[in-house]
């Protein structure tokens, strides 16, 4: 039994990087004014979703792009529409940061993990890109704090690193134990983009399989775009409430997006297209981004056109065929 004591509460050290503003009350007010608690259809194209819900300067979170259940069609559309000065939550990112930077969309990244490609290095050298240093887990825990509506959360990692110095973290003395404890600022992005296996028209969404932080991202973000391999009925959602990962009121746009993660895989639905994944990696690693963008993004008007012109039915069917594992990827 511990009696309440007055352990000194003090800040022992703090990082000195800019961080996305912490404003739980402001977030609440955004929710009240902008998030529909009525069940209204949010079905729209990826074009409309990006036009309406991604603005220049927005802080954007997504994950696993180009490999597994990434929201590729929406990211492609962001590049197609030429958004500028985005700030990216770079957790479990990879080749996509290089592509977005190469397309001129991004000016800040909270890392994470990403490929330091020629475009990234050039932007750093030219001062058009700033990096702040976290880790995959610190970033996903920042999102969890954002998803709880609290201003910060204690964690047991990150202390002692140099990343800490270039972050928004603080080292405090925990008033309960007196021990040095790291706290990190909650992250409430402007935009979350989440690709899921199934959703209804209102945004009730099902994620199957592992993930990084889809659900906290959807709860923590002011604007949420969900793209889904399949649109299912709300009756089906209601037939298995335990399978719902994200409730409709979090979601602003629902994009019906079969093969929306192409060239990556959606577990239980289709395998990746390894050649196309490699083509992207090779382009980005070589610094040859423009040709890639011209072929895959600027050269088509939509994801459907991308699939039609650059992929074709035979390859898509083959991707489906190669995904033989179905266990656990349906409700």
């Amino acid at each position, binding site marked *: 039994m511990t009696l309440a004591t007055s352990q000194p509460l003090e800040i022992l050290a703090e990082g000195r990087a800019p961080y996305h503003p912490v404003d739980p009350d402001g977030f609440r007010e955004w929710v009240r004014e902008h998030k529909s608690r009525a069940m209204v259809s949010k079905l729209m194209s990826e074009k409309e979703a990006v036009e309406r819900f991604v603005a220049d300067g927005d802080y954007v979170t997504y994950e696993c792009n180009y490999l597994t259940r990434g929201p590729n069609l929406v990211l492609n559309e962001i590049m197609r529409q030429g958004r500028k000065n985005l700030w990216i939550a770079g957790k479990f990112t990879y080749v996509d940061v290089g592509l977005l930077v190469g397309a001129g969309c991004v000016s800040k990244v909270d890392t994470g993990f990403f490929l330091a490609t020629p475009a990234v290095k050039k932007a750093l050298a030219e001062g058009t890109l700033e990096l702040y240093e976290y880790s995959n887990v610190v970033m996903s825990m920042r999102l969890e704090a954002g998803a709880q509506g609290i201003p910060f959360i204690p964690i047991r990692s990150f202390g002692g690193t*140099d990343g800490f110095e270039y972050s928004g973290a603080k080292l405090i003395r925990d008033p309960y134990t007196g021990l*040095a404890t790291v706290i990190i600022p909650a992250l409430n992005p402007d935009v979350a983009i989440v690709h899921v296996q199934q959703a209804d028209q209102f945004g009730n969404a099902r994620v199957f399989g592992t993930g990084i932080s889809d659900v906290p991202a959807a709860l923590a973000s002011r604007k949420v775009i969900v793209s889904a391999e399949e649109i299912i009925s709300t009756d089906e959602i209601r037939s298995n409430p335990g399978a719902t990962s994200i409730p409709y009121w979090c979601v602003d746009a629902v994009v019906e997006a079969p093969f929306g993660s192409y060239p990556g895989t959606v577990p239980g639905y289709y395998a990746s297209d390894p050649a196309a994944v*490699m083509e992207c990696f090779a382009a980005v690693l070589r610094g040859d981004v423009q040709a890639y963008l011209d072929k895959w993004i600027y050269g088509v008007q939509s994801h459907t056109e991308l699939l039609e012109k650059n992929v074709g039915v035979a390859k898509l069917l083959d991707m489906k065929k190669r995904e033989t594992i179905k266990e656990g990827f349906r409700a």
Partner: protein
Amino acid sequence: MTRAEAFSDREVAMCTVGRLIEDGKTYWAAGGGTPLYSVLLGKKLYAPDAQYVTEDGVIAPIPMLPFEPMMSMVASRATYKALSWGTMNTAGYFAQLGFMDYGILNTLQVDKHGNINSTFLGEYGHGGRRMHGPGGADTIAACCWRTILITDQEKRKFVEKVDFISSPGFLDGSEGARERAGLPRGTGPWRVVTPWAMYDYQDRRLRLMARVPWVTVEQILDETECKPLVAAEVQVLEPPTEEELQLLRTELDVRGQTSDAAGGWIIWDGEQYTRQAAG
């Protein structure tokens, strides 16, 4: 066990780590390369009741091998028949709670106190080489009870002090430094494994404890910029076996991307192993 005739540097490192894997212990593996292959090798050959968690939180899968290219995490073959699918945060919480016995990591630069740099070579923000960042390795290095680090045996990879601490070792090496920085009590680096050598720590300072038969202590020290402590008796590691290599080559690193990307080859000439450096 069958003597292997020829294998690569990185295959040696993975086999060495594979033999460290213990039954009934948990391993949190960073990413999908050498750490994952090493723990799978150990589990399949030596420690069937070792359990591993992927960086993204999948608990104890029985992956359908081999993986598709680039798809050693998150994809369905990698998460197949897991006991539970988690997320990045559920993995992080189990590590924070002390459920992860070992973390397995790889890196580009490590220092004499086991600090890891995967962020920046050179003076941060003033030119130099930007790298990919810690990924999940920071939390693995912070919260697992013991960490096993895999890297190549190159002078510039073993430095006195890393240019940037991406993932924590013993920090400045003083007693209690990790705890003062907010990290869990009693955690830290445990082994560093390279194609040539294995290191442990004495009083939080890197120490050479074992070598492969085909290199000498002097050769190893020549490829270690920070001068490590050297154990009174440096043990000799067993070379890889055919069984290990067969598993690595046919089920795990089937495209050779992880094992032959750098380093040399080691050949059995009928009497001894000799190493042929890469062109």
